[in-house]
């Protein structure tokens, strides 16, 4: 089990580093295994006299996963220094790294880009576009740029004060926005 975790961790880490490079031009980030959370652990002295940590029930606790991100020109480290939009981008990089390590038949993203400015919405959509061929995405949004990225658009409405939802599907107008056409050529 540990061997499989290590292998998957290495994959997620690689994908995360690539995701951060795409979302934070000039910046970098990585995942680190860190000493387990000290809640509920005891310090015991092993036979060899070295200090070890173990869970109250004698198990060795597993190391946790720490996220480290450094946007270009900014102080490194702690996640709590990041802005609202920067935090959303880091979370998206981590999610897409998980998706790549273990693909799922479909993904649902409910207003995940609400805190992003225009330039970062385009970076998010470029990341989304890179996976368009290999998975299904259901993306809920109020952002016009995200609507332009759709293969198919669903409009959810309630007839005047009815309180009952209906859904209408429609093909987006032929013009998938220029941003994606440009991306398609690159990909």
């Amino acid at each position, binding site marked *: 089990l540990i061997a499989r975790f290590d292998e998957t961790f290495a994959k997620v880490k690689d994908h995360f580093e690539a995701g951060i490079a795409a979302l934070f031009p000039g910046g970098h980030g990585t995942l680190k295994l860190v000493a*387990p959370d000290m809640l509920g652990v005891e310090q015991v002295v092993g036979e060899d006299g070295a200090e070890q940590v173990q869970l109250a029930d004698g198990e060795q606790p*597993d190391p946790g996963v720490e996220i480290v991100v450094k946007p270009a020109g900014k102080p490194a480290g702690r996640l709590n220094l990041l802005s609202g939009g920067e935090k959303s981008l880091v979370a998206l990089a981590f999610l897409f790294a998980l998706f790549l390590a273990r693909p799922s038949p479909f993904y649902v993203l409910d207003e995940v880009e609400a805190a992003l400015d225009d330039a970062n919405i385009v970076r998010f959509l470029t990341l989304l576009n890179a996976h368009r061929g290999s998975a299904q995405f259901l993306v809920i949004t109020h952002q016009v740029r995200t609507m332009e990225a759709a293969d198919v658009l669903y409009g*959810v409405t*309630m007839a005047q004060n009815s*309180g009952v939802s209906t859904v209408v599907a429609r093909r987006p107008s032929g013009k998938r926005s220029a941003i994606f056409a440009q991306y398609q050529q690159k990909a």
Partner: protein
Amino acid sequence: MHLKRITMKGFKSFADRVEMTFEPGVAVVVGPNGSGKSNIVDAIMWLMSSAPPSGMRAETGQDVLYLGSAARPAAGYCEVEAVFDNEDQSVDIPYTEVSIKRRLERGGDSTYSINGNVVRRLDVLELLADTGIGKDMHSIIGQGKIDRLLAAKPHDRRSAIEEAA
């Protein structure tokens, strides 16, 4: 394996039967505030995950039933179905199409079925586990939940990776 369609009836604001068909690629859902977009996400969570009612913004299991209004009575039952394309036989079941359904009667319990055969909830969760839709449903990011991943403890992030292993 990919998702072909989702059908909802009597679930939250979906009093009338609504069907959404899907193709591979990016489906974008739009609509005014309060029109029912996040209720679709709740329907998917209700059908496919082991989350408690709070995972679908409900206090009790019965809260997902259409509550009614002055013009229309409350629903007596609700039903959500998802149909997957299994041409690639990624799910070890001898069908090219896999349908998962959950039905809840008001005041009663839920019944689950796979391709029309009544099964237990556990059977549905095990079937989905094979497909990569993990127990913790990391592939579904609810509204306002994007930042929760960063706020999680290092140990929780580890279990997200363990699930992907």
